[in-house]
């Protein structure tokens, strides 16, 4: 019943069916939650804020706190200035955050509210208490995607906090990208194991994976601190992980504070994690400790032990561009064939990069940015695959086509684990290997006739 996708491919002029992205503000909200003591604020209608909170809650199974300017008809005519003023008053009186991170919506963008001058006025009038911060990012919903919103809010952290004081510390900055709390913790751990002091921002670990404490806390103990954000301007370098989510923040830091940046792929899978570790080696001048080389060894061990199950398998893959780029490379490293690759986020770089990764390895792959799951499904109907990888929305396709399915990316609304177990680093690669193998082998078991149903695989 749910399979209403025709096999015949028709080009659509103006229509999105079953999207593979969402809008900017939710990404900005998620990024802002990665600052300690920060209350994200949605400058728009109440619904935006409610939807983003619900969506994030469904993904993280955690309370997600954010306030809204609660636009009304009046605000849409006369501007949302009064709403933002009242909002800041309420927020600092009642919720007492260290920082308010304002993001706009399609409504306030189109009306043209000038957030910095509104905030400036509020501060002059004593609405924003001394020692408290209000930062903002413009996140029009009709430009880019949720990844763009994440990038914009992360860049705002640099714009508002990074200080150039002439000195250079031995620390490096890491912009981890739109990844899970578990991933942020893992990336930090790897840097620490390499003997580096790293400032990671944003950092949602300890915020959206908090333990049960019998207390509801508006501001959980995790998140990057403002002091650390200020110091990013005197770090020796920045590693931006993922071009789409993280490069802009690194570039601005370089421009503002002369901190050189390198943009790497998200460390998902073996090759991109290798490159990440190599970059860390360059900074630390140390060889990796045994913990890290052993972790890598285990990944290689599984890749070789189980290669026959991976080799030559056709895969369809969708999700956020930085994730999909690294994952595509990992699949190719395993001898798999990613033949349909989609992201909903616009950006020519994506198609260019994926084609480069597939060059000489996979002939005739369908690759498209700014696309949707309807398109992906049509491709799959025309050339079936052995495995589907993507966020929860892939389950419709997996069911319709009876394809083994591995959940990966954002959002995952129907399983847990992503908040706790990373997919980044070598440990993450190991987890991805396990998840893919489970899916593939469960299918083999299910489909095997009794005569060839095997105990040992």
């Amino acid at each position, binding site marked *: 019943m*749910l399979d*209403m996708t025709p096999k015949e491919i028709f080009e*659509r*002029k*103006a*229509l*999105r*069916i*079953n*999207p593979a*992205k*969402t*809008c900017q503000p*939710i990404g900005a909200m998620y990024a802002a939650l990665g600052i300690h003591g920060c209350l994200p604020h949605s400058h*728009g*209608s*109440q*619904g*935006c*804020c*409610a*939807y983003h909170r*619900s969506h994030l809650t*469904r993904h993280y*199974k*955690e*309370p997600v*706190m*954010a*306030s*809204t*300017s*609660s*636009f*009304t*008809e009046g605000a*849409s005519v006369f501007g949302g200035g009064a709403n933002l003023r*009242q*909002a*800041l008053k*309420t*927020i600092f009186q*009642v*919720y007492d955050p260290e920082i308010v991170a304002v993001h706009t*919506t*399609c*409504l306030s963008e*189109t*009306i043209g509210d000038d957030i910095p001058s509104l905030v400036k006025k509020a501060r002059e009038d004593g609405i924003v208490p001394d020692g408290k911060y209000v930062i903002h990012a413009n996140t029009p*919903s*009709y430009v880019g995607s949720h990844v763009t919103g994440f990038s914009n809010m992360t860049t705002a952290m640099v714009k508002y906090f990074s200080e150039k004081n002439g000195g250079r510390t031995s620390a490096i900055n890491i912009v981890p990208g739109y990844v899970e709390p578990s991933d942020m913790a893992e990336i930090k751990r790897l840097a620490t194991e390499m003997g580096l002091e790293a400032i990671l921002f944003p950092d949602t670990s300890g915020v959206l994976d*908090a333990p*049960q*404490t*019998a*207390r*509801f806390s*508006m501001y959980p103990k995790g998140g990057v601190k403002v002091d650390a954000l200020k110091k990013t301007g005197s770090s020796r370098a920045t590693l931006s992980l993922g071009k789409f989510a993280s490069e802009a923040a690194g570039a601005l830091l370089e421009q503002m504070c002369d901190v050189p940046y390198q943009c790497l792929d998200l460390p998902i899978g073996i090759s991109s994690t290798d490159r990440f570790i190599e970059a860390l080696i360059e900074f630390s001048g140390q060889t990796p400790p045994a913990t890290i080389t052993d972790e890598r060894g285990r990944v290689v061990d599984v890749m070789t032990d189980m290669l026959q199950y991976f080799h030559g398998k056709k895969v369809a893959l969708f999700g956020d561009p930085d994730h999909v780029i690294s994952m595509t490379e990992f699949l190719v490293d395993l001898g798999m064939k990613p033949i349909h690759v989609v992201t*909903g986020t616009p950006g020519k770089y994506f198609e260019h990069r994926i084609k480069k990764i597939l060059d000489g390895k996979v002939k005739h792959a369908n690759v498209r940015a700014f696309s949707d799951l309807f398109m992906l499904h049509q491709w799959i109907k025309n050339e079936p695959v052995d495995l589907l990888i993507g966020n929860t*929305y892939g389950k419709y396709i997996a069911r319709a086509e009876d394809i083994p399915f591995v959940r990966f990316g954002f959002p995952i609304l129907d399983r847990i684990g992503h908040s706790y177990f990373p997919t980044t680093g070598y440990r993450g690669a190991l987890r991805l290997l396990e998840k893919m193998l489970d899916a593939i082998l469960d299918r083999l078991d299910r489909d095997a006739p009794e005569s060839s149903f095997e105990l040992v695989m």
Partner: protein
Amino acid sequence: MNVNILEERTGQVYEKGQGPFSLKCNLDSLPGAVSQRACVFCGSRVVLYPITDALHLVHGPIGCAVYTWDIRGALSSNRELHRLSFSTDLRERDVIFGGEEKLEASLLELIERYMPSAAFVYSTCIVGIIGDDIQAVCKRVSQKTGVKCIPVQSEGFKGNKRAGYEAACNALIELVGSGPIDGISPFSINILGDFNLAGEIWIIKDYYRRMGIEVVSTITGDGKVKEIQRAHGARLNVVQCSGATLSLAKMMEERYGIPYIRVSYFGVDDMADALYRVADHFKDKRIMENTRSLIKEELDSLYPALKEFRKDLKGKRAAIYVGGAFKAFSLIKAFRLLGMKVVLVGSQTGTREDYEELEAVTDPGTVIVDDSNPLELSEFLKEKDVDIFVGGVKERPIAYKLGIGFCDHNHERKEALEGFIGMYNFAKEVHATVMSPVWRFVPRKEMRS
């Protein structure tokens, strides 16, 4: 109360027994509050979404379509067109030059592809600002294709969810009245305000069938355009819920002279009351007899089953925070039937009459809140030491963080909670939650012991 409440919110919180009752409600949320409320679009989408054979096209940036894509288990007995996500995915260029062309092209493409029975086109904030004339587009496409296209004026900023219900009803009334009504029984009703979550409308429909009553249309759970077009042929509108579809019933009364009654299908008392009132309306002996024997039959099997649950649940404390207040009345009675105490009750969009009635049916000491927020709710939950919290998606993690049991009585419920069988399911769920051994490990209990 030892709970910190926002100064501006003190009028929206009341503890029964503390002075004369008064509660401010239907206010706009204070800007800056971490409100649990949504927008006009959300209200309209919730009401219209379960119409299964219609096209639902969201005209706006992608988010509005994504966040309402198949998030509600509104089951269908036939087509499932409502479970796909269609959006015009407005871009910057459209915001500058207008999105009407894109909307028209999208509608034409979708109608050709899916042959829907009707199409709803939802307006979002941005469309209200750039001024696309979606009415004109709908009219043109209706004429071109013969498929009725209905604009839903659901710009998010125009109010709260309640305003969205109105916009949805204004869209629905355009369908009603355009189908043939011959052959409809004099003992016939429309079911309004039920969304067929977990198949609930099928339970209710079956009760009416056993009573000898014809259900002409279900609005909107398992909704079908053809049936809604015939809705004006029914003799009575039976309206559930906190008035999401109440204004449709009022419009139908005015336009077609169809009376309506308000009911609830949650809990034993309200369920039985609903059926009796419908039977009463028709003043038919056979129907009344059928109703009596149906209710007796159902209760005879339900009560013994509930007994076991009651034994364990007696004296446990419950808190309720729901979208519409109407559901809260039934929940209070249902908890009472299980021997439990309701110590906190609140809603996002209750009206003055709703809260007056809540005040009347609650016990002294019960806290009543309008348009609450997480901080306030969590303080009350702790202060009242509750065993189970009933709410929706945004309330769930708050309960879990505190180490309190939770029951989803909203979009994400997986078991039917309406009808007599629903009372059993509810009791079972409450029992499983409250009595689970996992609570022994939560810090809240450890701290107390």
